[in-house]
């Protein structure tokens, strides 16, 4: 038996190496993308022009020297922050509402001592929904959502939530699956109804991990807000796209600065919060 398992792993590694080699081959030969062409003088010229533009060299009035621009950027930063919190909130709520049937130990009745006929069916449907939700990248969700909603913070939050709901759902379901079912079953013998089982049995044990996952996802969502902004979902990203199209590179430096500040702040808060509840 051991030999078989080893083979799968080794075979996979070889397959992956093959994939990577094949990809490079495809890129070099099929697409004729040459590495040397990359470093031609023309390209280097454009590249340096670009970077100079970013830094505001040779510019009469670089954006980051004007207080007004800083104020605008601050507003956008706040908007982006709200978007990230909203998105995380929507995703969490949606995941909570759907997670119970998505846990294997609920579907087969081992957690709650109650076996419903639709156990595995609900399981499959909810899990399928999760897979669909997380397989579609946030940007694609955003592109679709923008057709329905007018540009703003809400469509961005919804698009981010649509993608992350599947991720959180899967993670939450795994937490429930890892639970020790004995205290829960015992609560059932003491007369606890479904809601009470969840509140007294599942939540106390699962809450720490739930919170950790929520905080981790918030960090990722924070980074992705800039991306949904590209398609018009508001915040720093939208302004980024605008400045890009007008070639106002110094604007972009300012926006990037705030973006990085926001991301680092979110990482910091998330880490502190996780330590707090340890």
């Amino acid at each position, binding site marked *: 038996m051991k030999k078989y398992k080893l083979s799968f792993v080794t075979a996979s590694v070889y397959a992956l190496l093959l994939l990577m080699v094949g990809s490079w081959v495809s890129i070099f030969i099929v697409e004729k993308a040459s590495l040397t062409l990359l470093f031609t003088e023309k390209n280097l010229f454009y590249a340096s022009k670009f970077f100079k533009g970013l830094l505001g060299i040779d510019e009469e009035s670089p954006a980051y020297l004007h207080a007004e621009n800083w104020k605008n950027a601050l507003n956008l930063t706040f908007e982006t922050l709200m978007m990230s919190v909203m998105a995380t909130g929507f995703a969490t709520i949606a995941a909570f509402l759907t997670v119970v049937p998505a846990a294997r130990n609920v579907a087969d009745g081992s957690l709650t*001592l109650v076996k419903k006929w639709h156990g595995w069916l609900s399981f499959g449907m909810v899990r399928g929904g999760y897979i669909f939700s997380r397989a579609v990248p946030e940007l694609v969700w955003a592109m679709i959502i923008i057709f329905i909603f007018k540009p703003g913070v809400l469509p961005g939050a919804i698009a981010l939530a649509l993608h992350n709901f599947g991720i959180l759902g899967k993670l939450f379901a795994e937490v429930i699956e890892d639970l*020790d079912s*004995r*205290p*829960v*079953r*015992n*609560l*059932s*013998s*003491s*007369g*606890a*109804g479904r*809601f*009470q089982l969840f*509140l*007294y*049995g599942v939540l*106390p*044990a699962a809450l720490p991990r739930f919170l950790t996952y929520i905080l981790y996802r918030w960090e990722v969502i924070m980074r992705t807000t800039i991306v949904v902004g590209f398609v018009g979902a508001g915040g720093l990203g939208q302004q980024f796209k605008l400045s890009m199209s007008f070639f106002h590179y110094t604007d972009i430096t300012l926006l990037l600065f705030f973006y990085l500040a926001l991301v680092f702040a979110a990482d910091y808060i998330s880490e502190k919060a996780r330590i707090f509840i340890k």
Partner: protein
Amino acid sequence: MQEAISLKQISKIYERKIALSSLSFTVNKGELVALIGPSGAGKTTLLNLLAAILPPSQGEILIDGHPLSELMDHKKRAKKIGIIRQQYDLVGELPVIHNVLAGRLSEWGLIKSLLSMLIPQDKEYASQALRRVGLTDKLYEKTSSLSGGEQQRVALARLLVQSPEIVLADEPVASLDPARAEDVLDLLVKIALEEKQTLIASLHSVEYARKYFDRLIALKDGEIFFDLPASSVTDDQIKSLYRLKEIS
């Protein structure tokens, strides 16, 4: 004397094993019964059947004259039957008070259950129960920080709050050292007498069974080996109960 529990021809058959075959006995209200027998004899299975956690393959169980199968609403069932096991009954992360108050869950609705998580409701039930098991100072401790013996006493407190008519105990003292075990058994029996509960406990120590219980039902290989008052059980009977099958 009322019949609290009545088993008629109960069998439980699994794919490869007959766990219980054709058991019949009755237990009267207020009796203290000990289930003894070698491991694998079917004691846990029997208790699970009585608690309606498993359905019997054949036969009928009557509780107070009514079939157990009719007691499907587990809130009503919780008022009739309570169960305590060897360990891991309690939600470790919760403070003791919530675990004890869980006995009230069958009475509480949605809102009250939610509210109690923030501000414990019906606290007097919990404090009284904990007083009776001798753990008043542990009210707000995290349950998992208590010792094994203390945790079993918390489980007893929960049973007190739940106050079912019938108490089933599955090896309640198996993981405790002798001093704690006697404490817990003492409490278990005392409470059952005070609350006029019917108690059925499975034990692997015949000594304890004889010491604390009125009646011994012995199971071997899924059948009743003997069913006698504690005082009339002889040592020879005990020996043959636990004797391993001879390989002939």
